C-alpha cells in the first residue's frame, strides 16, 4: 500500500492502474482515505508497444458441408468474406498493405488460397498475400501474424482471415499408383509404358481419403475427445447438456440479430445466403438416442455433441490504432497479448485452452475474474467440459502444468453466450476470426472491458488472446 506524499497526478495514475472493486488505502498527511475503485480498469497498453486494433470483422454464413456451397471452391468462399469486409468497412483497396489467410485442408490447385482469393476480390494486385496453417487455430495464426507485421512497423493495415471448405476435399490416388503415373511420364518407349501400366494392380486403385486424424498417432480427433472426456469423468449427460446450451444460445443470438458479423452472400447459381444453417436446438431426449460416433459402443461423444463439418470463411481488418484513427475508423477492440501452447498430441490433444489461458492472463497481468467475455472454441462438448474441469483442478495444474494452483474455470454466464462452434459450425480455419470478432461485439454489447479467446487445435496445440474493448 501507498504511504507517501504523492501528488494528485500520481495518485490519479495509480488509481487507473488498479483493477476494479479493489480497496485502496492511501495516507495523506496522517489522514487515511479509503477509495473503492469502481469500473475503471487499467488499460493493457504497454509503453513502447504499438496499439493494434480490430477495425471490423465479418464472415460468410457457416453452412453444413455438402449444402448450398457444395459447388464452390475454397477461394470462392474466401473471396466472399474478403469482399464482405471491404463492403462493411468501405476500405479503399489500396490501403491494405498485406493479406494473411488461413486454411487447413488444402485445395492443391490454390495452395496459396490467400492470393487467389485476394485477386478475385478486387484487391490491388500489388498487395501481397500468404497462407498460413495451424489446424483449428489457423486464422488465429493469420491474425497474430498481422499483429506481428504491424507491431514490427512493417505494415499499418492488414487483412487476416481463414477459409475451410469441407464439401470438397482432395482425395488422392494411392502412393503406388502415383508412383506409377509419375514414372509413366518419364517412360520413353511404348514397351516401358506398357510394362508400367501392366504393373498396376486393383489394390493400387484404392483412393486415399483425408481423415480428421492426427498424423503422429493415427487417432481421429473424436476418438481422442471421447478418451479425454472419460479421463476427466465427463458424462454423456453433461456433454449433451452443453451441446444443447450451445444450440439454444446460438438460436437466441441469431433470432435477436446479434450475429452481426455474418454477411449475406449471393452464391453463384443459388440463392442469397445470410444465415448459419447448423443451429438446431434439439431436446435432451432426442440427443440421448444417438449412438456414440467414435468409441463404440460405450463412448460418450456423439454427432450431436460434436461440431459438424462446415464450409465457411471469415475476415478481419487489423490496423495500428494511429492508422485507423487517421483513416477515420472507430475501432472495435484492441488486440492485446496472445500465446501459443502445445502439449502431447495423444492424451492432451484438446487441452490447449487449459494450458493457454493461465499463460496469457499472466502475460497481461490479469486474473480470470477480470475477464468479462469468454469465447472458447467448442470442438466437442466433451472437450470443453474436460477443459473446464482441468482448469478447476489444482492437481492437474500442479501435476501437468508446473503451476502452483489452478487458474479456475470461467463462469458460465460469461462463456460463449452467443453459441459456439458446436452450433454455429466450425470451418476449421475460419473459426478464429469468428471468436475474436464475437468477443469485440459482445464487449460492446455487454459493456465489458476484457475478453478472452481460447482454442485447441490438432497437433496438441492451443492458443489464447486477450482482447480489450475500445473505449466507446
Amino acid at each position: 500500500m501507498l504511504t507517501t506524499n504523492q501528488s494528485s497526478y500520481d495518485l490519479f495514475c495509480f488509481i487507473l492502474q488498479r483493477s476494479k472493486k479493489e480497496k485502496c488505502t492511501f495516507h495523506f498527511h496522517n489522514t487515511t482515505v479509503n477509495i473503492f475503485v469502481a469500473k475503471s480498469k487499467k488499460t493493457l497498453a504497454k509503453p513502447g508497444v504499438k496499439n493494434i486494433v480490430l477495425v471490423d470483422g465479418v464472415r460468410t454464413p457457416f453452412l453444413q458441408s455438402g449444402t448450398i456451397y457444395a459447388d464452390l471452391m475454397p477461394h470462392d468462399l474466401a473471396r466472399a468474406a474478403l469482399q464482405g469486409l471491404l463492403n462493411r468497412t468501405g476500405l479503399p483497396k489500396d490501403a491494405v498493405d498485406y493479406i494473411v489467410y488461413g486454411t487447413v485442408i488444402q485445395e492443391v490447385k490454390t495452395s496459396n488460397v490467400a492470393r487467389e482469393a485476394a485477386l478475385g476480390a478486387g484487391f490491388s494486385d500489388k498487395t501481397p498475400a500468404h497462407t498460413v496453417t495451424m489446424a483449428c487455430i489457423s486464422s488465429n495464426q493469420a491474425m497474430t501474424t498481422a499483429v506481428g507485421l504491424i507491431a514490427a512497423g512493417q505494415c499499418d493495415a492488414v487483412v487476416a482471415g481463414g477459409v475451410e471448405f469441407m464439401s470438397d476435399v482432395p482425395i488422392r490416388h494411392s502412393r503406388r499408383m502415383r508412383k506409377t503415373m509419375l514414372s509413366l511420364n518419364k517412360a520413353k518407349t511404348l514397351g516401358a509404358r506398357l510394362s508400367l501400366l501392366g504393373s498396376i494392380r486393383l489394390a493400387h486403385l484404392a483412393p486415399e481419403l483425408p481423415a480428421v486424424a492426427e498424423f503422429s498417432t493415427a487417432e481421429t480427433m473424436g476418438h481422442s475427445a471421447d478418451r479425454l472426456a472419460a479421463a476427466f469423468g465427463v458424462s454423456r449427460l453433461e456433454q449433451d447438456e452443453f451441446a444443447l446450451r450451445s444450440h439454444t444460445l446460438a438460436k437466441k443470438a441469431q433470432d435477436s440479430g446479434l450475429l452481426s458479423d455474418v454477411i449475406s452472400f449471393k452464391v453463384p447459381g443459388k440463392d442469397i445466403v445470410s444465415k448459419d444453417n447448423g443451429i438446431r436446438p434439439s431436446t435432451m431426449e432426442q440427443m440421448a438416442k444417438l449412438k456414440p460416433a467414435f468409441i463404440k459402443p460405450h463412448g460418450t461423444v456423439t454427432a450431436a455433441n460434436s461440431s459438424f463439418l462446415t464450409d465457411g470463411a471469415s475476415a478481419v481488418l487489423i490496423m495500428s490504432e494511429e492508422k485507423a484513427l487517421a483513416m477515420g475508423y472507430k475501432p472495435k477492440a484492441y488486440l492485446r497479448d496472445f500465446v501459443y501452447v502445445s502439449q502431447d498430441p495423444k492424451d492432451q490433444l484438446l487441452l490447449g485452452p487449459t494450458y493457454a489461458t493461465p499463460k496469457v492472463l499472466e502475460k497481461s497481468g490479469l486474473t480470470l475474474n477480470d475477464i468479462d467475455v469468454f469465447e472458447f472454441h467448442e470442438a466437442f462438448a466433451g472437450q470443453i467440459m474436460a477443459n473446464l474441469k482441468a482448469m478447476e483442478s489444482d492437481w492437474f495444474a500442479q501435476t501437468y502444468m508446473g503451476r502452483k494452483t489452478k487458474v479456475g474455470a470461467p463462469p458460465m454466464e460469461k462463456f460463449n453466450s452467443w453459441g459456439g462452434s458446436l452450433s454455429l459450425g466450425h470451418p476449421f480455419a475460419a473459426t478464429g476470426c469468428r471468436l475474436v470478432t464475437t468477443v469485440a461485439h459482445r464487449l460492446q454489447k455487454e459493456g465489458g472491458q476484457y475478453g478472452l479467446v481460447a482454442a485447441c487445435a490438432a497437433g496438441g496445440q492451443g492458443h489464447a488472446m486477450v482482447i480489450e474493448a475500445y473505449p466507446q
Partner: protein
Amino acid sequence: IYEVKDNVAVVRINDPTSKVNTLSRHMQAEMVEVMNEIWGNAAVKSVVLISRKPGCFIAGADINMIQACKTAEEVTSLSQEGQKIFDQVEKSPIPIVAAINGSCLGGGLEFAIACQYRIATKSKKTILGTPEVMLGLLPGAGGTQRLPKMVGLPAAFDMMLTGKNIRPDKAKKMGLVHQLVDPLGPGLKSPEERTIEYLEEVAVDFAKGLAGKKVTVEKKKGLVQKIQDFVMGLPPVRKQIYKTVHSKVMKQSKGLYPAPLKIIECIQTGIEKGNAAGYLTESQNFGKLAMTSESRALIGLYHGQVTCKKNHFGKPERDVKKLAVLGAGLMGAGIAQVTIDKGVATILKDTTEEGLARGHQQVYKGLNDKTKKKSLTTFERDGIMSLLSGQLDYRDFENADMVIEAVFEDLSIKHKVVKEVEAVIPPHCIFATNTSALPIKDIAAASKRPEKVIGMHYFSPVDKMQLLEIITTNKTSKDTTASAVAVGLKQGKVIIVVGDGPGFYTTRCLAPMLAEAVRALQEGVGPKKLDSLTTGFGFPVGAATLADEVGIDVAAHVAEDLGKAFGTRFGGGNVEVLKMMVQKGFKGRKSGKGCYVYGAKSKEKKVNSGAEDILKSFKLTAPPAVSADEDIQYRLVSRFVNEAVLCLQEGILPDPVQGDIGAVFGLGFPPCLGGPFRFVDSHGADKLVQKMKRFEEAYGNQFTPCQLLLDHAKDSSKRFHK
C-alpha cells in the same frame, strides 16, 4: 471385499503381499468365499471381476504352490480344484464380467475365459496368453478345454503350444475378449488409476446390460468363421489337424519336450471324447508334467531369469544418461539400438563413414521392423532415432557417462582406444569393453583408472539375444559394476556377473565344445550330421551352423587365444582347420560361405564343398569305441559342462544359477536340460564322469573331469541346485 453398485457386485482383486496377483491357495480360497457370498446375495444381478493392480489382472498360478507338491497326484488334485472353481464360475447363475487391464496369463486367463464376458484395455501392458508350455506345463484349470471352443482349434493350438502373448486387438479379433477399452491420458487422477476406474465403469455398464439381457454374449459370426466352424466339424479334418500339429511339434522339439504333446492330447481328448474325459486328462497330464525333469529345468530357468534381472550391486552413484558406443559394427550398432530404445541418448562412433552408415542403417532397420509389427509407431521410431548421434569424432564425449567399445578384437587396438577415449571423457565415465575373449585386465592395463574399466560381453544379434555377461577385474569398483548392471537391465538384458579370465565364462565353455565339433568334422562327421546331433540333444542351433553364425574367423581367433591360455584341455580339433577356412574366405554366414553356403533365398542350406575339401586334408580316423551318435553328443556336451563346472570351481562363476542362465540364454544350451549345472544334477555327475573317463582314454586330457565334478560324482547327495 466386494462392493455392490446398481445390483452389480464389483470384486477387486488385490494381493497385498505381492506386486502381481497370482492364483495362490490363499487367493483361491478367498475367491470361492467371495463368490459364494455373491451368489447368495439376491440383490446382486451380475458381477464384475477386476484387479486393483495397475498392469496386472492375474499373472498366473503360483509356481511355488506347484513346486511344493511332491507327487503327480498332489498336482493333479490342485488342477482339479482349479477346474472345479472355474466350472462354478462358468455355470454362474448371474453373468460375470472379467475386466482385464495388464497381464492376464496362465491361470489368470483360464479364470477370465470361464467368465461370461471379457473386457480388456488396449494398454500396452495388457497381454493375454497361456505361457505354461514355457514352464513345461499345460493350462491345467480348464484352459485346454475352453480355449478350443472359444477361439477355434488352430488358434487354440497356436496359443497353448507357443505360449505367446496376445495383444488386446488380436484378442478381440480372435474372440478371446468381447470389448476393448482405450487407456486414458491425464485427467483428474493419474492415467493408470483413472484407466482402471474407467474400465470398471464400462464393465459395470456391460454387466448391467448382460443382466438386463440388453447385451448378448454371442457375437455374430462372419462367413469365414462359419466356414471354419463347419470344416472343423468334420472329424477327418480334425484328425488331419492333430496329425499335422503333432508332427510339427515333433520336428521342432525333437521330442525333447513332453508338454506340447500332452497339450495336444488334452485338446484332442476333450473334443473327441467329451468334457469329462477332457478335464480328467488335463488334470492328470498336468500332474505328470509337473514331475518331469524338463518342467523342473524350465521352472529353474524362469526363477534364474528373475534373479538375473535384478541389480545385486546396489544403486549406482549416478545414472547413465549419455552412452557412447565405439565401433558401428554388428555389435556396436546393436548395443546402440537397445540403448536408445529405452530413451538413453547414445553416441555411435566409427572411424569410417561407410561403417557408420551401415551401423546407422542397422539401427534404423531394427526399429523400423518394429513399426511394421506395429509395436512402435513411426513417430516413436523417429523419436527414438533422434537420440542417436552418429559421428566420426570424439565430439560430446566429455558428457558421456559410459563408453562401451566394440572395436576389433585386437589388444593393441583396444589399448589405443582406451587411451584415446580416456583423454576426452569426464572422470566419472565408465569404460566398458565388449570383448568375447580378451581378458579385461589386459585391456585395463592401458587405463589410467582401472577401477572404471569393466567388461560387457553382449551376444549377437544384440537386440534379440537376452544375455549380457558382465566381467569384473579385481580392480573394478563396486559402483562401476552396479552401473554396468543398471545399464544392462535398462537395455532389457538378463545379466550374469563373472570374474575375469581368458574367455570369461561363456566363451570359455563354448570353445572346448567347438574344438570337439571341429574334431568330429575332421573325423568325417559331416556338418549336417553334426547339426542334427546337436539339435537332437536340444541345442536350438546346430554346432556347425553356430560356428558359421559366430564367424569362423572369430572362432579361430578365440580357439587360438584360449588354446594358448589353457593348453591341451582346449585341444581336440585342429585350429589350422579354422585358419585355413578363414584364409579361403570361408568366414561363416557374414562372408556367404562357412561350413555351409549361404545363397540368396534358397531354403535348403548346402554344405560348402570347399570346407569339405579342407576337412578332408585334415582327416583323422574316428576311434570306433567313442564314435556312436550318442558318444559324439556327449563328447560335445561333456566338454561344455566340465568347463562350466571348472569355472565355478575356479570362482570365475559366482554360482550355478548364473552358470545355467549364461549357458542357456547366451549359448543356447538345451533349455529342457536347464543349463549345465542342472544337467549334472539330473543326469548324475557319476554317470557323466564315467562317460568322460571313457572319452579320456580314447582322446586324452581334454576329457579329464575337473575336481568339483569328481566331488559330485563321488557323493550323490551333492547337488548344484537344492
